Structures are given as structure tokens and as C-alpha cells.
């Protein structure tokens, strides 16, 4: 069953239909919150809260991409959480904690875990708008048009947020020695 059918059933009070939508998008919503907040517990809370408020204001959904609408709710909750952190500094170890969920091959897990930690710290160093645009694009693979819906901004704004965020992250990764220079990359390909 597609999103629209489930949405109209959920609007009629069918909680099971809504929970099918939850099941469909909870991975996406949780991971976006996780990359935005660098904190598992906070991401869990934000994701849960996003689904609760989505159910409550489902009547206001005006069509288009449901997952973009959902991501917008989740992103706003993440911004609220970060605003609270500004008053009470965020745990800096959080990003390092996110490094690795234990995986099969210990060596590759270590490599991946270290890289993931660097990437998370790099993301955390970006302004929130650029971080969100980059997470939606490069981690979740959304198209610019859908990102514009999720961020409630123009396509031009999405373009510039991704361009600036990605350039900054490139500089960060280069400084960590995790990215060879473009010239070397070009040589590799030839």
C-alpha cells in the first residue's frame, strides 16, 4: 500500500495504518536525527517525538512527499534540541561514541568505525543548515527537490547549503588526512 492510502486511513483514525508509515520511515528519521545530534539517546527521543507530532498534525499534510514532510518535523525537533544544548554545552565525546557499532570483521569495523567517527565530527563542525542538507543528500541520497521540501527552502538555497557544507567537510577530511587532493584523485583515475 502506498503512502497516500495509508495517510488517508490514518487520518480516519486508523492507528495501524499510521504505524505502517512509522515502520517504513523510522530508520530514515532516526538516522537523520542521529547524524544531526551526534547522540543516540537524543536522536531516539527526537525520532519518537517526530512521529507523535506527525500523527497529531497529519490533517495539515497537504500532499507531496510524505517523507520530506516527516523529515521537516524531525529536523525542527533536532533544531529545538540543539537550541537547548546551546544553553547547556553538548557532550563532546558523543561524536566519538558514535564511532562504531560492533560489526563482523574486527579490522574493517575498526577502519569503518574510525572513519565514521571522523565523519560525524566533521558533520558536527558544520552549521546546522549545511549539516542537514548534506546528511539528506550524501548520507540519505535524497534529490535536491525533496531536500528543499524537507527544509522548507528554495532549490537555490539547497544548492548553496550543499556546496558550502561539502566544501567545508572536504577541507576537514583533508586536514585529517582522509582525503587525497583532487590532483591525486584525477591521476588515480587515469
Amino acid at each position, binding site marked *: 500500500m502506498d503512502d497516500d492510502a495509508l495517510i488517508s486511513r490514518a487520518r480516519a483514525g486508523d492507528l495501524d495504518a499510521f504505524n505502517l508509515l512509522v515502520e517504513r520511515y523510522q530508520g530514515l528519521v532516526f538516522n537523520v536525527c542521529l547524524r544531526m545530534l551526534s547522540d543516540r539517546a537524543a536522536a531516539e527521543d527526537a525520532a519518537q517525538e517526530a512521529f507523535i507530532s506527525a500523527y497529531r498534525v497529519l490533517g495539515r499534510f497537504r500532499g507531496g512527499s510524505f517523507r520530506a514532510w516527516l523529515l521537516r518535523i524531525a529536523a*525542527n525537533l533536532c533544531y529545538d534540541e540543539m537550541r537547548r544544548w546551546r544553553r547547556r554545552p553538548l557532550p563532546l565525546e558523543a561524536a566519538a561514541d558514535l564511532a562504531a557499532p560492533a560489526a563482523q570483521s574486527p579490522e574493517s569495523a575498526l577502519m569503518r568505525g574510525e572513519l565514521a567517527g571522523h565523519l560525524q565530527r566533521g558533520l558536527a563542525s558544520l552549521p546546522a543548515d549545511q549539516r542537514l542538507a548534506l546528511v539528506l543528500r*550524501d548520507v540519505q541520497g535524497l534529490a535536491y527537490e525533496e531536500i528543499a521540501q524537507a527544509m522548507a527552502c528554495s532549490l537555490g538555497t539547497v544548492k548553496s547549503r550543499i556546496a558550502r557544507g561539502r566544501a567545508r567537510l572536504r577541507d576537514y577530511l583533508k586536514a585529517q588526512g582522509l582525503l587525497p587532493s*583532487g590532483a591525486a584523485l584525477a591521476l588515480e583515475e587515469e
Partner: protein
Amino acid sequence: MALAWLQHLLSHRHLSAYADGELASGLRRRVEGHLARCARCRAEVEELQATARTLSLLPQEAPPRSFALGPDQVAAPARRPPPALALRGLQAATVAFSVLLVALVAWDVAGPATSEQAAAPAGSQSAPAAAPREAPEGAGAALAATPTPAPTRPDMGLAGPQATPTPADRRRQTEEAPAAEAGEETGRSLLRIAQVAAGVAAGLAAGAWAVLAIRSRRGS
């Protein structure tokens, strides 16, 4: 040369979107034309693509639990009424304090001549419990004070209790004019304090109302 530099600047800021295949065809062809001639931009595209590829290696983590909603989570729209109630309360407080401020200023501006009439509403608003006791006293004082040039302030408790309609008292009151004036001075500064307090309270209520209204709008 200058043209090439201009093309470089114009293309450079589109490289990320170009790498994502998100440029409209006209712009994409222009950027491609520049890339064929500019090694720096080619290197930049490589770096941006490598950054995007690296970022896509971030693992998708499984949610720690299901976020499916239970009936208890759904049957709690109790979060909405309180803000609405608070908004209405703050609105009412803003209006009440503004009215109080206007009344206090009006009393001040209108001066002693109308102080008796103004005293009743202002007094009843700031101290409702005292109003019934003061009203008859004020009326008596008004009678007693008619021929006296010095204003009486029944609510200040100076002339009020002494005011009885006998000539002797009237004389005594005239003699006590300096004391009454000192009392008026105190009254005026009290009035100023009350005005400032009402103004500040109205401002705070209006500010709190605005903050809450903006928040609830953004949250919806």
C-alpha cells in the same frame, strides 16, 4: 584571459550541484565547457565527489526500538490546550495592565480636581478588598473638602478619617495644608511607582505573549 577567469568564477560555485547531476541542461553544458579547459575545477569536482562518496560510507544504524505509536501516545492531545490557555491569560494580563496604566496616568494628568472620582475605580482595581470601605469615606471627604483649596486624598488615609463636615475641622484641615502637601508628595511618588510597575507588567505580559505566540506558530 579575463573571460576565462570569469567563466571559472561562474562555474566554480556550481561544481557541487554538477557533481550531483542537479544542474539544468543549459548550465550543465556551460560548466562542462569550462571543465574541459580548467584543471583546477576538474580537481575540485573530484574532491567534492570523493567527499560525497566518503560521507555515504556512514552506516545506517538500526533504530534502537520501534517508534510505532501506542493508543496512550495518541490519546494525549493535552499538550495543545495549555499554550492556548496561557496565550489567552497573557493577552488578558496585557490588557488589564495597560488599562491600569492608562487609568493611573489619566488620574495623574487629570490632577486633584477629579482625584475623588478617579480614586474609586483606580482604588478598586489595585486593591479590590479596600474598595468598599473607602468609597463612602471618599464621598464624605469630597463633601468636607469642597471649600478647601488643598486637595484631599482620602485613599492616602491622611485627611479621610478626620474629615467631618464641621467648620472647626475645616479650619484644622486648612492649617494642616503643609502636612497634606507632604502627603501628596508621597502620594505622587507612590503613583509614579504604580505607573512604572503597571507599565513594566504590561510590557512583560506582552513580551511573554509574543514569544509564546511565535513559538506555538513555529511548532505547528
